[in-house]
């Protein structure tokens, strides 16, 4: 790590380095060495996180000792697998401070969770049903997974889709909130943290407004759950969605939390085994939530892996992780702005922002930036990050995004800065 004597970070960087260095020992992939002996510097955490040994051990233990289908067996393995799967639900419920474990639905990813809500509302009875008179409100900084489901719903029901725009600083423009959220609004769905810009959104103001018109609120916490304390009761939302692979868990597992009364009232989405109470050829009745929304054999091992990831995160402490990332973000936004011709897309300070930082570097295309960084062992993401409207809004084709996590360190930031200098020289 470059030491900046006398800089504002002087006392913070050494502990942050130690924090990250200690944790990365748990992550086998971070020991990897790439082309020409370059150690891997993984700064693509907003796309997906790496997995600690502890999560892989939980997966292996599940498959090597307990694997069985859940819920329907009297044999030992089936009982153990069910206990592990349902135990993971308890862990998720505790992690997000859910009032009840039955409010935690396992899906395959955040995208399914978001689509699940859109589809519930398509087939719901009044007062929830989204029809041609209804309005849906999202924002211009959503991930495609929180845009396309609403476009589909709007096309298929005739409901009107509206959205909050963005300020030049990469924040939500709430100036027209009263025109956007009205008596016609059935649902307001927005991200807690932007995956492209890192912006942390003002939940309370939006939730208050939505509540005042009786609209439901869905919060996409995909970029929040891995990085900060998530308390669904404090958020006061109706639904919260997130995805396991970004928070140290396996791929193939997501979560939808929803308020119990809503989960009782709303219709099922996918039909099949596990989600029924009784079936005849003519008609079926459904099991209570969460099972009503979990058709078929669930991602059992992946839920168990998510439980292990939550144990790992909780042992460290989400507040400590957030503080660590805040230090890194502050250091990174400062140092990045020392790079000539570099323009940050999104907040230029560490206030109300997460650890994903997008930027453009002069007129060097992000693909080229990413390629030259890769050659130095630095993994960043380039492109529109599944949030193309943000690129359109700021008149850029794409960005380079560096995103940090608990195992990131100040020396990763330094390597990124050096790498960007190298990119400039290469295309200079």
């Amino acid at each position, binding site marked *: 790590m470059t030491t900046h004597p006398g800089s504002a970070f002087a006392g913070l960087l050494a502990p942050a380095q130690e924090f990250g260095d200690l944790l990365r020992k748990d992550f086998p992939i971070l020991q990897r060495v790439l082309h020409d002996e370059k150690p891997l510097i993984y700064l693509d955490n907003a796309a997906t996180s790496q997995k600690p040994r502890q999560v892989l051990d939980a997966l292996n233990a599940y498959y090597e000792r307990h694997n069985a289908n859940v*819920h*329907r*067996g*009297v044999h030992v393995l*089936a*009982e153990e697998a*069910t*206990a592990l799967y349902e135990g993971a639900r308890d862990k998720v419920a505790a992690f997000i401070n859910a009032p009840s474990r039955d409010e935690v639905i396992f899906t395959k990813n955040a995208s399914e969770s978001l689509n699940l809500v859109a589809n519930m509302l398509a087939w719901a009875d009044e007062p929830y049903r989204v029809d041609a008179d209804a309005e849906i409100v999202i924002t211009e900084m959503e991930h495609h997974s929180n845009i396309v489901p609403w476009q589909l719903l709007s096309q298929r029901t005739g409901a009107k889709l509206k959205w909050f725009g963005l300020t030049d600083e990469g924040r939500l423009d709430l100036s027209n909130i009263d025109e956007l959220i009205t008596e016609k609004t059935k649902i307001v769905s927005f991200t807690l943290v932007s995956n492209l810009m890192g912006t942390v959104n003002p939940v309370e103001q939006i939730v208050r407004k939505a509540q005042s018109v009786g609209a439901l609120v869905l919060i996409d916490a995909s970029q929040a759950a891995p990085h900060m304390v998530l308390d669904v009761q404090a958020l006061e939302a109706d639904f919260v969605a997130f995805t396991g692979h970004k928070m140290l868990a396996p791929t193939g597992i997501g979560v939808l939390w929803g308020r119990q009364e809503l989960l009782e009232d709303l219709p099922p989405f996918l039909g099949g085994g596990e989600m*029924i*109470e*009784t079936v005849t050829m003519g008609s079926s009745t459904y*099991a209570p939530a969460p*099972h009503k929304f979990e058709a078929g054999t669930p991602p059992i091992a992946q839920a168990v892996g998510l439980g292990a990831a939550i144990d790992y995160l909780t042992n460290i402490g989400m507040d400590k992780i957030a503080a660590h990332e805040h230090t890194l973000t502050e250091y990174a936004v400062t140092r990045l702005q020392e790079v000539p011709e570099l323009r940050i897309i999104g907040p230029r300070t560490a206030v109300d922002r997460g650890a994903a930082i997008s930027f453009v570097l002069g007129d060097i295309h992000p693909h080229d930036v990413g390629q030259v960084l890769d050659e130095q062992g630095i993994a960043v993401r380039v492109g529109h990050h599944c949030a193309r409207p943000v690129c359109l809004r700021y008149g850029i084709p794409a960005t380079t995004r560096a995103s940090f996590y608990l195992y990131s360190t100040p020396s990763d930031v330094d390597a990124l800065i050096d790498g960007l200098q190298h990119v400039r020289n290469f295309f200079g």
Partner: protein
Amino acid sequence: MKLDSMYQDIILDHYRNPHGKGLRDGDVEVHHVNPTCGDEITLRVRLDGPVVADVSYESQGCSISQASASVLNDLVVGKNVGDAQAVQEAFLELMQSKGTSEGDEEVLEDAVAFAGVSKFPARVKCALLSWMAWKDATAKALAQQPAVND
């Protein structure tokens, strides 16, 4: 053998000779299903003022669920609703004890034999099926009664 702790003789006796089985007149009828395994019970409750006058049932299920319905019948018929509900709660607690409780024989009588079942999570629902149906039916029957004291 672990199995013996589940299949106590008392349970097997009730299973082979269930008490009060068959449907008779009632104030309320409910139908409960265990979605996990498809076990079903149709259960009727007849109240006589504050007293559980009869609990009659038709059911389909394993030895545990059959025996439990039989024990239920023994324990609640003739009791005041309030006392019967206390028994029901004690039974629920026993079944949720994961093998850590032996049950209070004063309150639960034959039903303490189900203590061993509580160690088998997949079977707890079998033991509870009839009790949950009874709880539901009783609540409905009470709701139908003319309000007396308030």
